[in-house]
């Protein structure tokens, strides 16, 4: 599994770079302004990741599932995308055997995350709230769950070095984490249950 985190401005936001089907999706989604631009950059970032990490792969496009999750069409791989402010992270695993998840969370959220964790997670704040949040979000994405799944959950999150473990949202998950001055990225993969 490969992961890249970068500045979103490193990826062009030109709608002309979208595939025809992606352009149709964009029209249907009716995104406006910066949200629209962010979506375009996300699609281009995923296709670039496919081209970089699977160089022999054929031309692909990115389909948006009803949940908002990206699905690569035309190349056998599984992806996950996260963006927050001017940062994004994309994770890719070759083949379709694994579910992948990635979450990038800016440190600027630390102050608002503590009350959110206290309100929605029975165990409240268990470690750096930004790392805890990114780990929880990563598991939700990996399993295609919405944020309502967190409400009242008994999720337990612990960290040792570059690993984070999440228990209490289905089977336990072992994830990777990196810290940067502006953000945290957590990612992982697992076989479908």
């Amino acid at each position, binding site marked *: 599994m490969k992961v890249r985190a970068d500045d979103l401005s490193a990826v062009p936001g030109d709608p002309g770079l979208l595939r025809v089907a992606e352009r149709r999706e964009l029209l249907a*989604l*009716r*995104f*406006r*302004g*910066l*949200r629209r631009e*962010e979506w375009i950059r996300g699609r281009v970032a995923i296709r670039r990741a496919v081209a970089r990490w699977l160089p022999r792969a054929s031309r692909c496009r990115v389909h948006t599932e009803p949940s*908002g999750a990206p699905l690569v069409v035309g190349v056998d791989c599984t992806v996950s995308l996260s*963006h*927050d*402010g001017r940062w994004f992270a994309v994770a890719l695993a070759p083949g379709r055997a694994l579910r992948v998840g990635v979450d990038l*969370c*800016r440190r*600027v*959220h630390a102050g*608002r*995350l503590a*009350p*959110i964790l206290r*309100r*929605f997670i029975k165990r409240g704040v268990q470690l750096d709230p930004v790392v805890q*949040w990114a780990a929880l*979000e990563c598991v*939700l994405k990996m399993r295609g769950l*919405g*944020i*309502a799944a*967190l*409400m*009242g959950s008994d999720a337990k999150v612990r960290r040792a070095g570059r690993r984070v473990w999440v228990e209490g949202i289905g089977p336990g998950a072992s994830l990777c984490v990196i810290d940067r001055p502006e953000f945290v990225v957590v990612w992982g993969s697992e076989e479908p249950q």
Partner: protein
Amino acid sequence: MTTAAVVGQLRTLIVTAAPDPALAEAVRRCPADVPLDTVMPFSSVIALGVIVAVEDRFDIVVTRPAMQTAFTGGATLEKLAAMIQRLQGNT
């Protein structure tokens, strides 16, 4: 409190809950029936931050079914206002 008044308060709460208020400014003017995710980055952090703020401001407890109803198909100001009014027992 009327639906319009609740929607007005929600606009302010959302802009306040957003980490980048400039990116959320569009919420002050958007139609009430438009998914918030189409006008601003309405991430999970912001969404749950809004729920915490709503509970505090309107003195309600947002339940999981109420939240699922409000967020299915994309949260809008209208759906959030309806959720608040239902939980207040006004509808």
